[in-house]
């Protein structure tokens, strides 16, 4: 019997080693991911009406054309310019804003525009944990399927936090970044913070001329270590100021700033020059194109854009996705999270990363235009914004005008954390201001910031300066004539790192994904063969020992047989 087993294993061993040798002659086939297997999103968000792109007038407010794929809701602009108190109920209902979100009254200096401005902000959580189901709520994607836990200042809204009861997607007013605020020099501005969040917060008006303490409202600097106590959940506080200087500034939460700012509680605040009939677009929700610029900007520029660069740590945002109990979130954020060990993972421009930046953060230009860009870096590291095809002039640092004769042109703009710069971009085709029409990138030249989303390229804060002639019907950059297909970026599988990004570069998918080894891998095969080899040797020895007598006898017999003839001979 053992001899049979021995023979069987020996046969199997010989056969399998031969097969393996044969298999290693040919490597696995390339497997191409079928586009039908991907969760493809339309490149342009179909929920946004194309009619929003046209130049129009609502409630007497002139709204500039914004030909990109996802322009701002014109009703938002009308409400922001007139105030939610001065528009019809019909327009208000199109905004989703609370009727007391922006209150504009009293022309104090008699120059034809309101000078008492009340802006009500709430604090909303995005992509947080639910105790009811394993998903996140309300969701906000910075790129397809990318949902970092975040907090934002949001204009005071009315109704639900999600699109509707069936959806977990956030109401469009609840989004990154915190909205851009615009006020005029001399306006009596009240920013009313209604803390709808479960943590304490505050507002610090970085760079904006504001009194340290206000006679009626007390501490006014937003700092819990110097001017005021933390504003607790369910409470309201008024920050009041009357700015004497104009400029591009920054507002942010100053409670546990090292985490709260990174979570998204910061935005641009612009103080505009005081001009007659200066009805400002008080809020630019989602930043980007300013479709109703101030009088001063209109006098000098054809267009204006607010560009808010931010960076977030994935591990920080995950804390609100790990726990529902606010005490555990507080513990992990305040006592366990160590920012000195942190890395930046998500890089956003106006709250979004590529490819969503193509939907709403393009700088859409025409030749011979003069465009004002206001940039803020609210991330924790330096950034270096580079404009392809253009040199722009830095006119202001941190809201203060740079000496006009000393102003310089650059194509890389380095910005420290919290820094703001104002740029003048001229699309004059002279080889310096502009090299001509095109779809020119504008990106952070630190490669991780400019190009990656959680380390996966293409992502990050890339956007483009696109000439209108390079725009397709959807308001996206026209790239198909170069044979480029951007649709793979509009799938969540791409950012889940499950799509071999070069599989479609050639017919044979030479850089596609190899199929897995059928059966067991090479290393295991070798191990098994070796084990079998050992077994064979063992069996062989056993067989020898078990039949020792027999062998001895037969050996003896053989020997004697050999001897006997010899003996016979002797």
């Amino acid at each position, binding site marked *: 019997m053992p001899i049979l087993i021995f023979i069987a294993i020996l046969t199997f061993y010989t056969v399998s080693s031969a097969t393996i040798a044969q298999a290693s002659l040919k490597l696995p086939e390339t497997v191409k991911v079928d586009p039908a297997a991907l969760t493809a999103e339309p490149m342009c968000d179909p929920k946004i009406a194309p009619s929003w792109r046209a130049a129009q007038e609502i409630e007497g407010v002139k709204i500039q054309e914004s030909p990109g794929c996802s322009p701002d809701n014109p009703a938002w602009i009308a409400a922001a310019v007139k105030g939610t*108190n001065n528009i019809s*109920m019909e327009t208000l209902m199109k905004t989703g804003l609370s009727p007391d979100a922006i209150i504009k009254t009293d022309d104090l200096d008699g120059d034809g525009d309101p000078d008492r401005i009340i802006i009500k902000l709430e604090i909303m959580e995005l992509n947080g944990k639910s105790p009811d189901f394993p998903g996140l709520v309300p969701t906000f994607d910075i790129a397809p399927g990318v949902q970092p836990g975040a907090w934002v200042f949001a204009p005071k809204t009315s109704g639900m936090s999600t699109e509707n009861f069936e959806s977990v997607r956030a109401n469009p007013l609840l989004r990154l970044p915190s909205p851009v605020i615009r006020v005029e020099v001399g306006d009596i501005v009240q920013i009313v913070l209604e803390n*709808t969040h479960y943590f304490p917060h505050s507002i610090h008006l970085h760079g904006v001329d504001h009194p340290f303490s206000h006679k009626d409202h007390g501490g006014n600097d937003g700092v819990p270590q110097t001017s005021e106590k933390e504003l607790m*959940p369910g409470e309201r506080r008024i920050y009041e100021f009357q700015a004497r200087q104009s400029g591009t500034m920054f507002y942010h939460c100053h409670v546990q700033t090292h985490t709260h700012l990174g979570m998204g509680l910061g935005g641009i605040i612009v103080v505009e020059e005081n001009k007659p009939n200066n009805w400002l677009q008080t809020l630019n929700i989602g930043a980007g194109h300013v479709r109703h610029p101030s009088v001063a900007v209109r006098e000098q520029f054809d267009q204006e854009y607010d560009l808010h660069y931010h960076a977030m740590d994935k591990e920080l945002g995950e804390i609100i996705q790990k726990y529902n109990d*606010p005490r555990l979130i507080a*513990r992990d954020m305040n006592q366990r999270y160590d920012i000195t060990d942190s890395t930046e993972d998500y890089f956003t421009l106006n709250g979004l990363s590529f490819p969503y930046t193509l939907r709403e953060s393009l700088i859409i230009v025409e030749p011979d235009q003069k465009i004002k860009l206001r940039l803020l870096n609210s991330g924790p590291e330096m950034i270096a914004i580079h404009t392809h095809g253009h040199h722009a002039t830095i006119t202001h640092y941190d809201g203060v005008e740079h000496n006009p004769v000393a102003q310089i042109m650059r194509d890389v703009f380095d910005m420290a954390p919290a820094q703001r710069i104002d740029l003048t971009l001229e699309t004059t085709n002279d080889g310096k201001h502009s090299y001509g029409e095109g779809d020119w990138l504008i990106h952070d030249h630190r490669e991780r910031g400019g190009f990656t989303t959680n380390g996966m390229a293409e992502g990050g804060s890339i956007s483009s300066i696109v000439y209108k002639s390079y725009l397709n019907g959807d308001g996206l950059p026209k790239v198909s004539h170069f044979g480029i297909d951007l649709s793979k970026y509009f799938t969540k599988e791409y950012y889940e790192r499950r799509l071999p990004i070069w599989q479609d570069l050639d017919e044979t998918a030479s850089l596609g994904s190899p199929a897995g080894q059928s059966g067991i891998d090479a290393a295991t095969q070798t191990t098994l063969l070796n084990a079998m080899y050992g077994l064979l040797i063992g069996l062989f020895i056993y067989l020898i020992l078990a039949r020792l007598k027999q062998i001895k006898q037969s050996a003896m017999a053989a020997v004697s047989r050999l001897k006997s003839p010899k003996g016979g001979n002797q």
Partner: protein
Amino acid sequence: MTRTTTITFLLAGMLVFSVDTFAQQKTKSNEHDHSGHTMSQENASATDQTDHTGDHTQDHSEHDMSHDHTADHSSHSVSTQSSEHGDAHHHHHIDHDHLMDHEGTMIMGQNLDKLPSSCKSISEEIEITVRAGRKYAAKFPGTAFAFDQQQWNVKPCSKVTWHFINEDNIRHQFMMHGLPKYLYKYGMFHLEVTGPKTVSGTIIVPGSDDTFLVHCDISHHMEKGMKAQLVVGKGSENIPSIPGLTPYNLTDTYEAENLPNVSDKAEKSIITRQITEFTNNTNSLNYGVVLIGILVGLLCIPFLAKIMRRKKDN
């Protein structure tokens, strides 16, 4: 959940807080005529709970300001002497079941007279007061906002008027889901108000036993505690993760933490402290040193004894 207590409490509350609001309500229809807006329902008003405690000054400055802007319909607020919330009753008419005033106080999906198909008549008319705020979360550790009650029981086919009192200085909602869609748009009944203030609205509940979700839909208010249920008749399946009432579907994991303790610092006699510290100290190094001491002792004592003896001999 004795309904009578609730009603009594409500009436008492109304008397105490808003004697002048009744006066305002009387003039209300006039106000609406003034401003050219129509009110579809007489009692679809936000009653005003003027909070004279708390941070009054803030309220003042803010509302005084919001007054100025409503110059076009401000005549009534002057005539009714209704202090800073004067035109809070000024409802803009959006459509028949959606009413909102200039501060965002909202009544949506109200139903005063449409009988559900499962009802022959209204079984009873009741009023329920619901309070909302951060302070009601105190009794549920690990929550941030809550209603004062987590469950209300009503008879099938009853007509319920809800008085929703928001005691915080932010927005809260009383939002009910799952109602019959032929009577309620999206199956929803929704009250919303920025506090401290009250809003009231009425519904007629269906004739069958059922349980309805009630929550505040502001981001993470429901997740962090502001969740309850309305039980009609015997009710149906409970709604999960209502604080103190039903278990969470997903629970967090908790672990004991190394928190500083007062007893760590409690004053003891120096000797006791040293002894306790020593005996409590499990550091093996200390024991090692002790061991070395013993060894040294064992080795040296005979040696020393020898020296001593030799000295004596001398």
